[in-house]
């Protein structure tokens, strides 16, 4: 709630400054963007986040926004028949694919020349993802098929997305869109790239970052489990003993048999 409020305040400030700049000798062709938050904190009740991306844009320009998370190392496993059962029959490892990749535009993507779409990685086929994917597996030679299915899977989970016309333009000078970060999205520093396109050319690029990090208990537990797994295991043991003995003392519980 507070974040939304902050976004609205930020939005209002921007609107005012934009209005102020209207009269000033502001050079045309300026692109400026920001996000309602630069840090997303994963706490106990975390279930994703809505982030406002907004800013000012040059006259008559269209906007395309790309948001991507750091690349991951993925194992893709395929289920197939094994006797009467369905189990994993094939697996490939792929590197360089971002966990999240989203494109938001103010107008139809077709109105942007194909060369620009390809160069900036703003197209329906996720060509930027395809270019950077590196397969590390001798198992299979049909990597293209894996990529198609992986992209479809990530689209289904809201991690990959292309939304045309989702960026709202206000009075031709301001823009805003809502970026939905799903709970399953990875942690790390996300890149936000905003492109202003006019007359089949990119006339401005602005970049920003959003950090998605576990904080508090989430961070502590994850670190402990990864870096001091012995201590973490001991914590689980102590917890079980204290809980078991504690509930006997507290409730004078009747026996629960195993």
């Amino acid at each position, binding site marked *: 709630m507070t974040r939304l409020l902050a976004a609205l305040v930020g939005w209002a400030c921007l609107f005012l400054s934009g209005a102020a700049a209207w009269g000033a000798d502001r050079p045309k062709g300026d692109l400026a963007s920001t996000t309602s938050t630069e840090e997303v904190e994963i706490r106990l009740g975390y279930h994703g986040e809505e982030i406002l991306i907004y800013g000012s844009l040059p006259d008559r320009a269209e906007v395309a926004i790309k948001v991507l998370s750091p690349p991951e190392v993925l194992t893709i496993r395929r289920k197939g028949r094994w006797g009467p059962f369905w189990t994993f029959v094939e697996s490939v490892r792929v590197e360089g694919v971002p966990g999240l990749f989203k494109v938001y535009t103010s107008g139809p993507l077709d109105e942007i020349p194909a060369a620009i779409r390809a160069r900036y990685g703003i197209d329906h086929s996720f060509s930027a993802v395809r270019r950077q994917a590196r397969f590390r597996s001798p198992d299979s030679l049909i990597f293209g098929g894996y990529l198609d299915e992986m992209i479809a899977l990530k689209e289904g989970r809201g991690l990959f997305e292309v939304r045309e016309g989702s960026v709202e333009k206000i009075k031709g000078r301001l823009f805003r869109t809502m970026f939905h970060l799903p709970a399953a999205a990875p942690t790390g520093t996300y890149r936000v790239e905003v492109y202003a396109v006019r007359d089949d050319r990119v006339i401005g690029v602005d970049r920003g970052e959003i950090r998605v990090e576990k904080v508090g208990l989430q961070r502590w537990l994850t670190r402990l489990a990864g870096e001091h797994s012995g201590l973490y295991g001991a914590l689980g043991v102590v*917890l079980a003993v204290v809980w078991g003995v504690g509930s006997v003392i507290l409730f004078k519980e009747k026996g629960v048999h195993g």
Partner: protein
Amino acid sequence: MPVEPKASNTMEVYLPIAGVSVNLFLLLALGAAVGFLSGMFGVGGGFLLTPLLILIGVPSTVAAASAANQIAAVSASAALLHSQKGNVDFRIGGLGSLGSLAGALMGVWSVRALHESGSADFAIRFGYVVLLGSLGIFMARESFRALRGGLKRGSSQIVLPAILARWRSSWPLQVPLGEGSVSALLPVAIGVVVGLLAALLGVGGGFLMVPAMVYLLGMPVLMVVGTSLFQIFFTMLSVTFLQAVTNHTVDLVLAVLLMLGSTVGARFGVGTGTRMRAAELRMLLSFLVLGVAVMMLAGLVTPPRQPLVLSTEPPGG
């Protein structure tokens, strides 16, 4: 603006190790339901908990390891109560626990090897189908007989303990048990099997240990439940620790929520269970067990809606 707002008042809780966000009340209800059943039927409930966690989206390896932690807590209180009444044979329980530790070590390493080859999920699900399927059929048959024909016993059940009695007294390393003695190898062997199942499937193994202690060890029935609970407690503690160190699959947030739910649920279950006839209770439980087995089997033999599964690793890992 073409952006649909997301409801922010859902009570989701993010599980740091599982890496998924699940509904808090669903999780508490699950813990309570399993606690209720374990209180009612006198079972650990791990055999139900792990499959149900898998069904709501928790990765199977995390489900099995975190359930182990929850069962350790539940069996700790039950074992403590039994030991206060003097119903725990610490010698046999201790030997069994040693065996469990060895079995758990083997199990945890198998999980790791299976995980690396990508077949851990299949192995866990398949293990459940076999275990619950055979257990369910056995229990259903037994309780059906008891409900219909009273206490008529099959001849095999009389002959079997007689043969075993000869075996267990002729094997080396005799330790005292009740009025007789038993080879120390037997409780250790039972422990190894239980530890292996515990690490692989996240079950306490009480359903296996109770008949094994009665028929293989010839332990006085009064001591069996308390001793098996003591051993379950120790087994699950070892599994929790070993899974945390070897496979990083224990989710403490998940475990605590399950403990919370099951502690409450068990209290209502005990009351309900004592008002029902034992045979009816077992019949009901066998249906439950068979139901879970059929559901898991269906998941294995029906074509998956999504044949591809993605798993991420830390870069360089």
